[in-house]
């Protein structure tokens, strides 16, 4: 393999693929499309190619971006987790059901009407285990029994669940639940590979695709179902969107500074090349970093005292500085952009290296972490901090796929890891499913955490649609993982979005929704 030598060097680019330009929902306000030619084009870069065009199978940030442009969801999610309209103009929810009333004027990308029956068919296909949609458990609850019906006369779609899952409406704002019209459902293989005429429901259709290089999308005539985000910039939606795949952030920065691109996202130092005077910059968390222990018998992490000592040995603020200090020091397994995330600093174990040393001295730990985030600099910090506290730490800094296999898949020997959590659905549940239930190969609880109180409180949070009751249950849940030291919160790794003055976009929950991009100045 002549190129394995180079993989280390390009691991950062690959991590950027993981990091950049994620988005969870759909679209912005109505606007007249009157401009033409160059003026009506928005150009931006993505750091990795799309892995597939079937929204249900979206697994990477770039996939989510394309899904948001081509397939609309029933609802959108705004700052603070507020649900706003999408294809549905009204909705009512209980912990076990939701009824969505659709807008009247909906069409598929071939101009045919989009009916409630079409929407229900698309959702049934998404929920079907045979489809293999990765986030389905986060939308309907893991292993839940789901019943989806429609009423064309009333214009409604109803989702019923056997066991409560109050994230249902929130989940239906996730990009992968984007509604696919009948031609796409009829040919899922083709849907995965590229545009299927008439399959789309979103504002844009893919007009030209050069895999791995560039894509051109065109705004549909007469499309009006934009999501009304609170920070939606006024202006025209682009008639044409040109997306270029640029694995190297410096290249994207070059093109942004020469005016070829209108917008790009940076996880590395290139964001600093753009002055506030000429560009609009917006920084948001993209990865949530926290320590998870292997709590299986025979591993040091099975002992709560060791976990506490590790918490004391680590300083999240110092960890944040490893990545440039622009992230947020976390107080849970999620940051403050995620609704109901813990904000109480007193629940977090304060750094106390001296106390840590008493317990950790001579303890042998294998730290397995991904080098996909900043080359694994965060892992090195954890290793050094634990070493300073007397532990003997063996660091295995491996690439993302190896880390995911060994740690998340339970196929390797490890004691401690720095979890790099993407949280594409921006919910606490997205992380909680990693700390409850059976360990691999039967479940996703990769550290084999046994925290009954946490599980109980998560179930309570999922059993109420009352926002304050839900957050109260989540508060108890997070308190229990922090007091048992099942996790050690570290910090977020941020992404900086840089827009030139011509283009702006909404950033619901800290993520740019590409369908909210507007030309604000010609």
């Amino acid at each position: 393999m002549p190129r394995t030598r180079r993989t280390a060097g390009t691991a950062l680019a690959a991590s950027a693929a993981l990091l950049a330009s994620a988005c969870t929902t759909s679209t912005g306000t109505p606007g007249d499309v009157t401009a033409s030619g160059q003026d009506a084009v928005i150009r931006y870069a993505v750091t990795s190619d799309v892995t597939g065009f079937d929204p249900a199978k979206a697994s990477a940030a770039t996939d989510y971006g394309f899904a948001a442009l081509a397939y609309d969801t029933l609802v959108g999610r705004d700052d603070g987790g507020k649900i706003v309209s999408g294809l549905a103009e009204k909705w009512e929810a209980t912990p076990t059901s939701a009824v969505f009333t659709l807008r009247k004027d909906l069409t598929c990308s071939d101009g045919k009407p989009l009916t409630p029956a079409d929407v229900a068919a698309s959702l049934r296909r998404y929920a079907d285990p045979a489809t293999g949609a990765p986030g389905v458990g986060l939308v309907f609850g893991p292993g839940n029994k789901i019943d989806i019906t429609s009423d064309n006369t009333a214009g409604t779609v109803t989702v019923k669940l056997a066991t409560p899952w109050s994230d249902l409406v929130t989940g239906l704002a996730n990009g992968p639940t984007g509604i696919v019209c009948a031609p796409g459902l009829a040919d899922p293989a083709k849907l995965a590979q590229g545009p299927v005429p008439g399959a789309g429901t979103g504002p844009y259709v893919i007009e030209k695709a050069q895999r791995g290089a560039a894509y051109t999308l065109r705004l549909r005539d007469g499309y009006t179902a934009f999501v009304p985000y609170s920070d939606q910039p006024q202006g025209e939606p682009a008639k044409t969107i040109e997306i270029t795949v640029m694995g190297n952030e410096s290249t994207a920065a070059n093109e942004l500074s020469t005016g070829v691109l209108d917008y790009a996202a940076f996880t590395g130092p290139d964001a600093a090349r753009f002055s506030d005077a000429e560009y609009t910059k917006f920084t948001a968390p993209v990865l949530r970093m926290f320590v998870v222990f292997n709590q299986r018998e025979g591993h040091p992490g099975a002992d709560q005292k060791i976990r506490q000592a590790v918490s004391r040995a680590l300083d999240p603020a110092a960890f944040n500085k490893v990545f440039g200090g622009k992230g947020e020091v976390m107080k849970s397994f999620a940051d403050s952009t995620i609704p109901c995330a813990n904000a109480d600093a007193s629940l977090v174990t304060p750094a106390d290296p001296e106390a840590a040393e008493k317990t950790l001295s001579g303890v042998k730990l294998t730290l397995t972490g991904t080098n996909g985030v900043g080359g694994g600099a965060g892992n090195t910090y954890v290793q050094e901090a634990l070493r300073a506290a007397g532990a003997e730490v063996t660091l295995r800094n491996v690439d993302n796929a190896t880390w995911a296999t060994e740690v998340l898949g339970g196929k390797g020997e490890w004691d401690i890891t720095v979890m790099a959590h993407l949280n594409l659905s921006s919910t606490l549940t997205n992380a909680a499913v990693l700390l409850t239930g059976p360990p691999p190969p039967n479940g996703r609880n990769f550290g084999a955490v046994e925290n009954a109180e946490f599980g109980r409180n998560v179930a309570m949070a999922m059993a109420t649609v009352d926002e304050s009751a839900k957050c109260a249950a989540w508060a108890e849940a997070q308190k229990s993982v922090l007091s048992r030291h099942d996790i050690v919160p570290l910090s977020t790794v941020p992404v900086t979005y840089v827009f030139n003055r011509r283009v702006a976009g909404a950033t619901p929950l800290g993520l740019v929704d590409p369908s909210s991009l507007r030309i604000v100045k010609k």
Partner: protein
Amino acid sequence: MRTEDHRPVDAQSHRPENPAADTPGTPVTDTSENPATGAPEGTAVRGGGHPWAGFLLRRLGGLLAVLVTLVVVTFLIVQLIPGDPARALAGPDATPQQIEQLRHEIGLDRPLPEQFASYAGGLLGGDLGVSFQTREPVADVIAARLPFTAELALLAVVVALAVAVPLGMAVAVATRGGRRPRLDAAFTFVTGLGGAAPEYVLGTLLVLVFAIGLGVLPASGAATLSALVLPVTAIALPGACVLARVVRREAAVVLEQDYMRTARGRRLPAPALYARHALPNLLTGTLTLGGLTLSALLGGTVIVESVFAWPGMGTRVVEAILARDYPVIQGTVLVLGLLAALINMIVDVLLGLLDPRTLAGRSHA
């Protein structure tokens, strides 16, 4: 001018010069001369037979061996990369059940011999398989990417040769017999620096000056002809520097040969002297190096592709490795390996045309 005037004076003079062979005490490892027959060029092959027939047979046999080895080794080597393709493919939110379902869909739950049989069977039918990650046929992936890399690599090698050969020869002529020592030093310094400059530094500098500073050339992309200038320059420059040094060294040796002295004595005009008498004798090393450079560049100009967002093979292979996309890794390595073998063969044919005695090489392919 008579025909024989154009030809080297004797067989000895036409020997490709190996700089190492000039070192006192180093045996001349030339395989081309046949001391038993002292046969003139073109017939110096043991065992009679047509020189080209044996040569081509050997090379084709070698090519077949390379092909079989590549198929087996690439299949086995991807299995050695740690990390589960199904997990890498399924994304961060997949459940274990979905990962197993995916493993079944891409056929990785079958026994290894069965997977190999299916892969090899597909190859015999010209099917390179389907990408795990994007579900595109691997042949399409290569067809989409290879032309971009080939364009870059070929142009870079052509530019490198076009710069290196005249420059190296000119410097060799100008500094012959220890003349112009300053030029000699400057040439050595500049080409040494250029040859050692990493492509990404050159690429970044070129972008900084010509795209961002002067704004005369595009900073990235492959859409226009002008977009070729910077990446080709970034790749060609170090190659040109190294090649120029080789040409200069070989030319310096050739220029001191008796046949050159004889040719000069006949008062041949400079173009005829250098192009017809010196050039063929110094091209051996240059062409060999050029061919190797081309093979290496086809394998991936990863960094330059990355700097210029050039949609070539290198970046795609790295993506495939990171995603554990076995079919794409296998397919690209196979195609690139074959191309490298073909380029080497073409270089050997060219060398055979220039100096037929190389056809009888002792070391069979």
